[in-house]
């Protein structure tokens, strides 16, 4: 079983099966609403793949992925608000929420986002460049472990606070009420399905990229840095460079996920990008199993699904059930859901240790 999953042929079978489920079964079986919800969960899964790389393989506890998710999301939202205003009131019109905030002229930094090409380039480049700069500043100084985690979390908190104070970025309410996505009506069910396909496609691409990184020489160096950074340095490698690549890749994945999240969900606000959402990203990865390729995806989907299903069943008590679920999974399966096969094998082989102490 495990050999099959890690082998070359197994990989292609795995990808084909995932594609079949995402592109075939899901759209056939799920209602439009459920498919939209799945699309939203896929965005979290894309973020999770990046965290799996940076944390699971690279040992960097990225507690602040909300920053990059938020950058991607806000950049996309800025374009969509500009396009909405232009379509309704002609070029140069002020987006509706700015009128409410008493802003009569479009701020200069909003203007270039009228262009779709500029927006896409910005989504791909800005968060990644920010991650590279930050990564160099942090990793060159050999900041790691808890200090790095605290730093990234503080960054997520600061970013949310910064946005709440910016009325020209929607403030506390965030940006919402989008009508078009690159010229397509968002209220059309066919276009909503299209967005789902795009999210599913991005997830597969991101998984393929992560897989290549893991299997390359670089991937082995990354694990080596995680397990024994000093030794890698003694061998003549610059550990900081190795870490920056994984950190930047995770940032890029999060930014792309944020960008597609906006048209799918229809709103982005500081509540989606601060400390709590950042922790939820990590939690999904921890529950799924940070070390494996598919574990973070499973974890992110499972956490989101559990949250949605439990809150529908028990609207006023679901948070307790969710907390219990986290405790049970982490206590019984420290390696996450992906380690379930290994855990049962160990359980069978060593029946004595599994028995309760007298």
């Amino acid at each position, binding site marked *: 079983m495990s050999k099959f999953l890690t082998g070359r042929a197994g990989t292609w079978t795995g990808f084909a099966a995932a594609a079949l489920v995402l592109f075939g079964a899901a759209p056939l079986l799920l209602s439009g609403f459920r498919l939209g919800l799945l699309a*939203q969960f896929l965005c979290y899964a894309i973020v999770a793949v990046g965290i799996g790389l940076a944390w699971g393989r690279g040992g960097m506890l990225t507690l602040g992925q909300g920053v990059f998710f938020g950058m991607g999301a806000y950049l996309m939202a800025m374009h969509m608000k500009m396009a909405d205003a232009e379509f309704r*009131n002609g070029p140069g019109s002020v987006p509706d929420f700015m009128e*409410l905030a008493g802003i009569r002229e479009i701020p200069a930094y909003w203007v270039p986002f009228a262009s779709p090409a500029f927006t896409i380039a910005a989504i791909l480049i800005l968060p990644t460049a920010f991650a590279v700069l930050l990564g160099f500043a942090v990793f060159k100084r050999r900041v790691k472990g808890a200090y790095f985690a605290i730093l990234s979390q503080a960054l997520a908190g600061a970013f949310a606070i910064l946005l709440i104070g910016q009325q020209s970025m929607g403030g506390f309410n965030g940006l919402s009420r989008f009508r078009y996505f690159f010229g397509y009506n968002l209220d*059309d069910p066919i276009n909503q399905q299209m967005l789902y396909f795009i999210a599913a496609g991005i997830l597969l691409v991101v998984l393929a990229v992560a897989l290549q990184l893991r299997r390359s020489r670089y991937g082995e160096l990354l694990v080596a840095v995680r397990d024994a950074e000093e030794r890698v340095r003694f061998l003549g490698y610059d550990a900081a460079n190795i870490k920056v690549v994984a950190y930047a890749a995770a940032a890029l994945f999060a930014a792309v996920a944020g960008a597609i999240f906006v048209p799918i*969900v229809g709103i982005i606000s500081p*509540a989606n990008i601060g400390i709590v959402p950042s922790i939820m990203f990590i939690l999904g990865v921890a529950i799924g199993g940070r070390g494996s390729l598919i574990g973070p995806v499973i974890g992110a989907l499972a956490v989101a699904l559990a949250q949605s299903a439990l*809150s529908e069943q028990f609207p006023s008590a679901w948070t307790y059930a969710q907390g219990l679920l986290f405790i049970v999974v982490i206590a019984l399966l420290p390696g996450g859901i992906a380690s379930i096969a290994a855990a049962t094998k160990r359980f069978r082989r060593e029946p004595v240790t599994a028995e309760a102490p007298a």
Partner: protein
Amino acid sequence: MPQRFKFRARDVARTFTASAAVTALALTAACGSRAGEETAAAESCVDTSGDTVKVGALNSLSGTMSISETTVRDAIYLAVEEINAAGGVQGKQIEIVAEDGASEPTVFAEKAEKLIREDCVAAVFGGWTSASRKAMLPVFEDNDSLLYYPVQYEGLEASENIFYTGATTNQQIIPALDYLAETGVKSLYLVGSDYVFPRTANAIINAYAADKGIEIVGEDYAQLGSVEFSTIVNQVNASGADAVFNTLNGDSNVAFFREYANVGLTAEEMPVMSVSIAEEEVGGIGVENIEGQLAAWNYYQTVESPENTTFVEAFKAEYGAERVTSDPMEAAYNSVYLWAATVEKAESFAVEDLQAAADGVSFASPEGTVVIDGDNHHVTKTARIGQISADGLLYTVWESEGPIEPDPFLEGYDWAADLKVTE
């Protein structure tokens, strides 16, 4: 010279090929309508053939807003029970589908869509923050369904798919300013949380003040949830303003009023007019810190009317004698009755029938009769200035002469011309 790590060209090429293949696959999927084209309206799945009709109750039952929003949910449940006991709507019993908005706008949007598309509810009651309403608005418009929103808000909005049963600015903020002006206030200090409601409210206050010759001596914003108020309160103290207009939200009020009392400021010396402090909040702030201060709402538990006596008694009988009733609760209670009355008038549960029938629908509510304005989907409301007394309740010290017509875009006020928004 440090060693370098390289990516093999073969790996990179393979990854890009795979990416390109998947992208192509995604793009070959059919595309829907483009901007400007008509979209086929989503078919409503509301089923009214049985003995029951489903409605949604969407309130934050977890997260920071739950303390306020659970009280609104209680009021919604009370109204539904009363209507059911009296025979239901169009002979059908109302069945509530409850969902948790979790104090998060995205969750509000998600759950609203679930209620409309999966549970097929005829209408949804709930929401509190403007952020949650703005997140839900596109969902209700795209799926052509109805939301009844029960909280006072910043105005400048009118959606075909939302009925606003709380006050808009001309039913709360402007009457509060009129009251202050009547009592001889010549200068004001504005304190608010940094988000859209206080910002919009203060824009209106500035325009009003400029017209009426009131001086605005200071305008400060605290971050939402901030509890550090010594700087702001010291500035307020030093400003010598005649009164303070307070649009702070939530926990910040506790810190603000404690600090206010600490530096020795009193309601007699420099009264504070608040628009977000109701019966529920007074206990948290501590009566001793806030006694004598003013609030602007449309309803207090102490309003004297037979309808209110019945409402308060029913509420306490259901949820306990220690509970209090507040303005948003009353507005939520009214919203259920207004929906039911509209359904009875339209003899239909269909959204377009309710939209057509809504104008003039009225309800003899605890605050006085409220009437729906069919043009802007708001309701007429009586403005009341209340004073906080030692027993923790608010007592009316001034009220408007009858209900005020809703004017969300302030079209009836010349001084507000610059505030207008094109919709």
